[in-house]
């Protein structure tokens, strides 16, 4: 949730930056008209540019969200095999949950593979070996 205060700060900073750029361009064209091209930018424009820059950066840092550690491995310090082993594209559903979570009044006969009940998986696997 970005606070709108910091967004306003960035807006103000960018506007001030644009304003300073515009002033500098106007100053340059004025210098060219009055043929005083050696004079440097007036100090207030320079100050405005620098301050607007700092303000914008400070505001963006607050908008951009949480920083991550530079160390790539530190992000993984809390990761465990609990989640690493889960491959969502390969999830299977023939586990105990299908029966465990079944409400007691629901018939078990909604399993179409009736042979599966009489012939549990390990015996089925042995059958293949013959």
């Amino acid at each position: 949730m970005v606070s709108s205060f910091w967004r306003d700060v960035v807006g103000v900073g960018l506007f001030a930056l644009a304003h300073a750029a515009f002033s500098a361009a106007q100053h340059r064209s004025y210098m060219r008209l009055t043929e005083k091209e050696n004079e440097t930018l007036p100090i207030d424009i320079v100050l405005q540019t620098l301050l607007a820059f700092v303000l914008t950066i400070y505001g963006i840092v607050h908008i951009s969200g949480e920083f991550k550690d530079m160390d790539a491995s530190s992000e993984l310090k809390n990761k465990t095999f609990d989640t690493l082993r889960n491959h969502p594209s390969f999830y299977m559903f023939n586990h105990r949950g299908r029966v465990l979570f079944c409400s007691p009044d629901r018939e078990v006969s909604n399993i179409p593979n009736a042979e599966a009940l009489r012939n549990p998986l390990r015996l089925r696997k042995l059958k293949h070996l013959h």
Partner: protein
Amino acid sequence: TPVQTDWRVNVLIIVFTEMRDKLRKWREDNHRNSEQIVDVGEELINEHASKLGDDIWIIYEQVMIAALDCSRDDLAWTCLQELKRQFPGSQRVKRLAGMRLEALEKYEDASKQYDSILQDDPTNTAARKRKISILKAQGKSAEAIRELNEYLEQFVGDQEAWHELSELYINEHDYGKAAFCLEELMMTNPHNHLYCEQYAEVKYTQGGLENLELSRKYFAQALKLNNRNMRALFGLYMSASHIAASPKVNATVKKANVKYATWATNQINRAYQVSYARCLL
């Protein structure tokens, strides 16, 4: 009074954002806590559908898969219908319909569904992976392994598939090939301590002096990447002790490994003491 209503509405909003953020965290971190997901997701869908905006579609998908895990076929059907209505003709929704058929053990129909997706789009990786899962569910592990190998020849960068293949090989006790898959994963994720540790465990299981030394080195690497990995610490202790106890090593190697094992023991004891002290606080 108006103030009281405001407070209650604020609490509801806080509760709603918390639920939505929890679901997002579980989705991003690949948690398979399906019972919780169904509880939170069902409430979110029924009570707060309007506040969710476009997030609701991905939540429907997440809740549907969790509902299949919890045998909540009614909820899964509802989610699927909503998604079908919003995204007619979408292949992602077709895949979900196929997953529902798989959960009902209608493997032929599910396979036909995925084949139709692949006809329209031969590069669709999700449908190919689901076909492999059907083979796995039917117990045809050799074919599943073969299909997965073919898939990986084309899509070499798919890390989930490499890890899945390593698991299939471990189930078949083919540890050499499982180690190869884990090597691929370590290459692409050099900073992940868990892959190092799993590789070390596979090498340790293979046995033999060379493999034990390799496993000790990778346990050490896992610890370097994450010094809080207790399994790697135990693994370091076990592999070093086994090497030291082996009759084939000379005295220097034996002494070095005894030193490593002792160091590991001290670290383990210290870790237990620290966590005991933390419990007392």
